[in-house]
């Protein structure tokens, strides 16, 4: 850590990981309800646990992104964060807002719009917090005046994420029109600007970890992000299948979703070749695992498994079955969970008292492999359940309820794999919190040494 204000990131990561744990608890509860009967049906029914599960995901990943930005931007801009006080206030309001939303869901305070369940006051607070964040980061970048491609891409991604949240505030009379704009937020986030954030973070990590040439990596960063947008913007079409929009969205969805593969595959190759060319010599091996893992898992979960069901003639049968959470779980894990955990793993030695980049943590490796394997198992459980459901219910015409009974065994598999996954996540969270952080407030940071050359310069 070269800049004192980078330690703001620790607080963000701590909140993010706490919410991550909570997200898994609600996920597990929701999965158990698939086995039924449900003793909590009148207290905490499925719709509540499921909404909390997905909302916590969005909140903690965004918290992780913001923490990552507070860590990355000072280094890229070679200056302290404009206002650390504002950053802590921002985190405080963000957390309180999140808690209010979760408790609200338990008491039925919801807008009941998938993934955008947040009631209006909560939504407005989210916008205000995002603006506080962007202001702080933007002022920092102005102060530094370096405007590196990596930080530009990262911050532009987060800025666009805030902008694209605005359609979520609109109310539409026509249900189909409201679906149409809901995806402007959700799809253009996760298959547009969040990918941009992911690519920006990967660029930062690859420069630091591999020591590969910045000019080279940033040149390709533009290509990757360009490919993501060229395919991803019109790729929104694959959410417009069968919801009452014009026919032409069907072929557009098929073609542009297939082109997303190109972008995600390019991203995996980009990470792999950057590492290969410059060697895996960085002492923080775990961070290398998470970084390369994220690029590869994205190509698999978001890419391949997305392609598996976005062709219209396939989707006609699989639409609205458990095939969708198959893709959803592995895509979110690969692209966003893993990249946030990569930044956390990379940054931790700089944020702890006995910071040692070469710290060998057995627990850390368990955390990586159990989560990667557990998620693969969950993906397979959803896939097998979804294939059986599609065949029995959609093709053979067995009733929904009878079909769900026949695929119970896959729900057992889901819970088994989810347990493995949760143990892995628990290892990660425990490994994080057992390390003593540096002094978070006041005092000089441990190594305020602005004259020290940037880490990449040491390695190249």
């Amino acid at each position: 850590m070269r800049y004192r204000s980078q330690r703001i990131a620790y607080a963000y990561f701590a909140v993010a990981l706490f919410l991550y744990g909570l997200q898994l608890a609600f996920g597990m509860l929701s999965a158990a309800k698939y086995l039924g009967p449900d003793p909590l049906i009148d207290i905490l029914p499925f719709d509540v646990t499921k909404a909390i599960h997905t909302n916590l995901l969005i909140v903690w990943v965004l918290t992780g992104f913001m923490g990552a930005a507070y860590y990355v931007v000072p280094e890229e801009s070679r200056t302290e964060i404009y206002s650390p006080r504002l950053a802590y206030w921002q985190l405080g309001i963000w957390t309180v807002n999140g808690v209010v939303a979760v408790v609200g869901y338990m008491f039925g305070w919801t807008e009941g719009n998938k993934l955008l369940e947040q009631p209006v006051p909560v939504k407005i607070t989210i916008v205000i917090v995002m603006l506080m964040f962007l202001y702080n980061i933007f002022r920092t970048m102005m102060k530094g005046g370096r405007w590196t491609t990596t930080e530009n891409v990262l911050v532009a991604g987060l800025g666009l994420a805030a902008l694209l949240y605005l359609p979520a505030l609109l109310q539409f009379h026509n249900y189909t029109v409201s679906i149409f704009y809901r995806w402007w937020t959700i799809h253009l986030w996760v298959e547009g600007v969040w990918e941009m954030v992911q690519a920006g973070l990967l660029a930062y990590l690859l420069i630091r970890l591999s020591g590969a040439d910045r000019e080279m990596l940033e040149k390709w960063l533009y290509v990757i992000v360009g490919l993501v947008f060229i395919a991803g913007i019109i790729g929104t079409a694959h959410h417009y299948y069968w919801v009452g929009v014009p026919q032409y969205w069907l072929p557009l969805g098929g073609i542009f979703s297939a082109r997303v593969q190109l972008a995600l595959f390019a991203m995996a190759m980009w990470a792999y070749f950057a590492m290969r060319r410059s060697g895996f010599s960085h002492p923080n091996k775990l961070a290398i695992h998470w970084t390369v893992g994220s690029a590869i898992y994205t190509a698999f979960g978001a890419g391949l498994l997305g392609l598996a069901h976005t062709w219209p003639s396939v989707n006609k049968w699989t639409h609205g079955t458990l095939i969708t959470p198959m893709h959803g779980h592995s895509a979110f894990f690969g692209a966003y969970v893993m990249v946030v955990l990569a930044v956390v793993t990379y940054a931790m030695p700089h944020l702890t008292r006995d910071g040692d980049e070469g710290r060998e943590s057995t627990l850390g490796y368990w955390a990586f492999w159990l989560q990667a394997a557990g998620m693969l198992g969950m993906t397979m459980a959803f896939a097998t359940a979804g294939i059986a459901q599609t065949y029995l219910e959609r093709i053979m015409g067995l009733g929904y309820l009878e079909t769900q009974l026949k695929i119970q065994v896959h729900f057992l598999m889901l819970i088994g794999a989810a347990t493995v996954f949760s143990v892995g996540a628990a290892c990660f969270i425990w490994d994080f919190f057992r390390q003593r952080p540096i002094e978070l407030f006041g005092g000089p940071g441990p190594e305020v040494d602005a004259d020290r050359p940037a880490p990449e310069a040491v390695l190249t």
Partner: protein
Amino acid sequence: MTKRQTRLFFIVGTLVFAGIFVGLTVDSHRQFGRLTNADLITADVSAGKDVWHDNNCINCHTLLGEGAYYAPDLTKITQHRGVPYLTAFLEDPSRFYSEEQYRRLMPNPELTDREIEQVLAFLDWVSRIDNQGWPPRPILVTGSRFAGVEAGARTADAASDEPVALGQTLFSQSPATCSACHSTAPGVQLAGPSLAGIGTRVATLLAEGGYGGSATTAEGYLREAIVQPSAHLVPGETFSAEGRSFMPDNYSQLLTDEQVDHLVDYLLTLR
């Protein structure tokens, strides 16, 4: 390629495709009204949409295939089940499904009569949206098209012009989709009574008394059962309430006289 060129690729590529996307959006808006029958969005439909949202329905059910996957898709539910049935169901779902048997149950949403009316109006509007013919085959809440019912007849043409063949196709085809509620297997009760052996059972029913309608022949009985479902009520609290059958009563409008004849011809063959 230099970094300047790749940056240009990113900026121009993004702008071009974002431009196309906005253009398509404008064009979609020109078509939404027609595709969704926007003129049929009454105050009740609108209020029903709010009931749908306020009760977080989408986090268990799917609608137009979107939502959670824990409860049945409701896109075409009002075409499969009549309003009286759905009203009785929403008043107390546990009367219709056993949690022991299906391992999950819809919690009582505790809606007022008015809210039920509104949410059903909303679902009925949704069921008429032109969504490229999805689902390709009816998605049943419960039961099956296996036992005694030909799977997959939804998109098939009738084997011949024979009235029985036409009726048989109609039985599992939309409109009508009788198979969504009636099985033809003995003892398999779906939302409506099993029709196994209906061709012979009707004669017994007419002969034994206890029949309140105005038909005198088996043909007459079946025709009446289709177009005036409440004329004679089959006993069972999940089939009717307050003297009204749960079966939709609009088949005289949905089907032509000829189609009703074909269905009757087909049903008479079930023995």
